[in-house]
């Protein structure tokens, strides 16, 4: 048993991508993850290489890696409209290979983003966005508004490492230099940290945020309509006064905005409010992005195809259309005839198409994919780059090595197999054009 310690490892347990983790290993497994929260600790421990995992399974039976890769290439190549679905746990390097593969087979590439903060992207495209890094939040922000999110549960170190508690250059006294307000439908665990909590009526975020924009502009608002949101006009005015008085204000929002009906409208209203506040002070709005490297998936898709998710390459050039090329809709309409799921177990929705699963944990119950290929876990035993929730790239420092290949290796091999076959679209001559 060789004890080893790796300092400054990056955790991909949530979008915070904390890069101050000290990972202790016994050579085979992670034994401790110092500085990590409980979520991060289990991320490292439970993604230690599993020596009992077969390299690949075909129809649930152990198979050679070569056979699994060959079958994966056959299934994707034979399909009329294959989907490459990235669950957001892979490195940016692997995600780039996934784009190349989608292009080579003339398929669609989408990620878990379409099922969480996709509407936030649509809002950005409609309204625009004033943003900053978490480093700027730590050093400058003296007013924090968390809206429709619960970092105490989902991003446990967000407040302690980046936002509310740490001493920053212009906030040297940490928590005492900051004000924090929480708006949510329920008084969650995050409320314990808040200076003020407002309970908003479910499904009225757009109305409340729009009323705030109107008040900011000096326009009249209807008291009764505002009351339907759970706020009074006086409360909204007082909140706006606090926001305007800040030197640097930040609104962090979560699925409370994005996953409620009309999510893009809700987030658009939040972005609009943050923008308009810049007539008075510096104010930004940031989504609370989730696990792994979901942000990296959006980044890679943006720099390769120009779009963040839901991209069809079925005509040889990228087309983007949420609602058409997004996973939930594709499954519901039965549009796809094969799927490669990267980084996580296949959802029940993939039951009707031959599915290839690539990831460190292979699905054992429910809908079992046709091909399953085990890979090294991102950041634990696979190196590469991930992106933090503020789009910053972070290098990984894996503490362990794995006998298993990485996601990138496997995608590369599948891509190489596909390229040996006749190109689906003559002009491409089997060569990737984008990634």
């Amino acid at each position, binding site marked *: 048993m060789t004890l080893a310690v790796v300092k400054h490892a990056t955790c991909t347990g949530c979008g915070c991508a904390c890069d101050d983790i000290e990972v202790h290993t016994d050579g085979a497994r992670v034994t401790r993850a110092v500085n990590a929260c409980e979520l991060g600790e289990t991320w490292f421990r439970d993604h230690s290489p599993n020596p009992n995992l077969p390299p690949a399974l075909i129809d649930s039976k152990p198979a050679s890696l070569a056979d699994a890769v060959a079958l994966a290439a056959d299934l994707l190549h034979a399909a009329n409209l294959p989907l490459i679905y990235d669950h957001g746990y892979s490195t940016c390097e692997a995600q780039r290979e996934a784009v190349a593969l989608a292009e080579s087979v003339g398929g669609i590439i989408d990620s878990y983003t379409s099922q969480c903060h*996709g509407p936030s992207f649509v809002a950005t495209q409609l309204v625009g966005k004033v943003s900053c890094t978490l480093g700027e939040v730590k050093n400058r922000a003296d007013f924090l508004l968390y809206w429709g999110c619960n970092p105490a549960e989902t991003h446990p170190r967000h407040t302690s490492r980046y936002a509310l508690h740490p001493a920053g250059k212009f906030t040297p006294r940490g928590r005492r230099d900051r004000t924090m307000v929480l708006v949510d*439908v329920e008084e969650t665990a995050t409320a314990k940290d808040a200076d003020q909590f407002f309970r908003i009526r479910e499904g009225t975020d757009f109305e409340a945020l729009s009323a705030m924009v109107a008040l900011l502009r000096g326009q009249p608002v209807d008291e009764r309509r505002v009351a339907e949101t759970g706020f009074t006009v006086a409360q909204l005015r007082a909140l706006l006064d606090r926001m305007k008085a800040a030197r640097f204000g930040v609104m962090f929002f979560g699925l409370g905005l994005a996953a409620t009906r009309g999510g893009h409208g809700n987030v658009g209203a939040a972005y609009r409010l943050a923008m308009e506040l810049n007539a008075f002070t510096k104010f930004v709005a940031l989504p609370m992005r989730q696990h792994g490297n979901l942000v990296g998936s959006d980044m890679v898709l943006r720099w390769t195809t120009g779009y963040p998710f839901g991209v069809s390459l079925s005509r040889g050039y990228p087309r983007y259309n949420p609602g058409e090329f997004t996973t939930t809709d594709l499954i519901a309409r039965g549009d796809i005839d094969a799927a490669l799921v990267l980084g996580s177990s296949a959802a029940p929705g993939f039951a009707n198409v031959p599915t290839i699963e690539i990831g460190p944990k292979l699905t054992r119950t429910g809908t079992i994919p046709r091909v399953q290929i085990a890979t090294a876990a991102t950041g634990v035993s696979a190196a590469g780059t991930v992106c933090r929730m503020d789009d910053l790239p972070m290098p990984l420092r894996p503490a362990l090595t794995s006998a298993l290949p990485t996601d990138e290796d496997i995608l590369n091999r599948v891509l190489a197999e596909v390229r040996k076959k006749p190109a689906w679209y003559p002009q491409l001559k089997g060569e990737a054009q984008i990634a």
Partner: protein
Amino acid sequence: MRFLLMPIRSNKQGVQINVGKDGADYNAVVNTMQAHPDDLKELGAASGATIRVRTDVGEATFQVVEAKVSRGMLFVPYGPPTCQLYGGDTDGTGMPTSKGWEVEVEVVSREPQASAKEPQ
């Protein structure tokens, strides 16, 4: 009885995803709903009882436990059972609306089940 369904993310859910979605603990976490004690009384169900939750597109059974939440609302971590309750309609956004569904609840078994988890 009608409720508003609020699927959420929780720390325990995240931890159990890391441990493995095949595990009994993960299943217990995503199958346990939280409701206000007065709502449970009105339903005639004890904390830990089994309920069936129905929407226009599907249904699933959950254990329900009492918790400090608002009346008329049900909170549950996202997971395979909540996926049964909203369909493939995304209103053209790509994102299934998951929060704020009006659901119909009926009690399947009034007595507590051993697998119900404490509030998440």
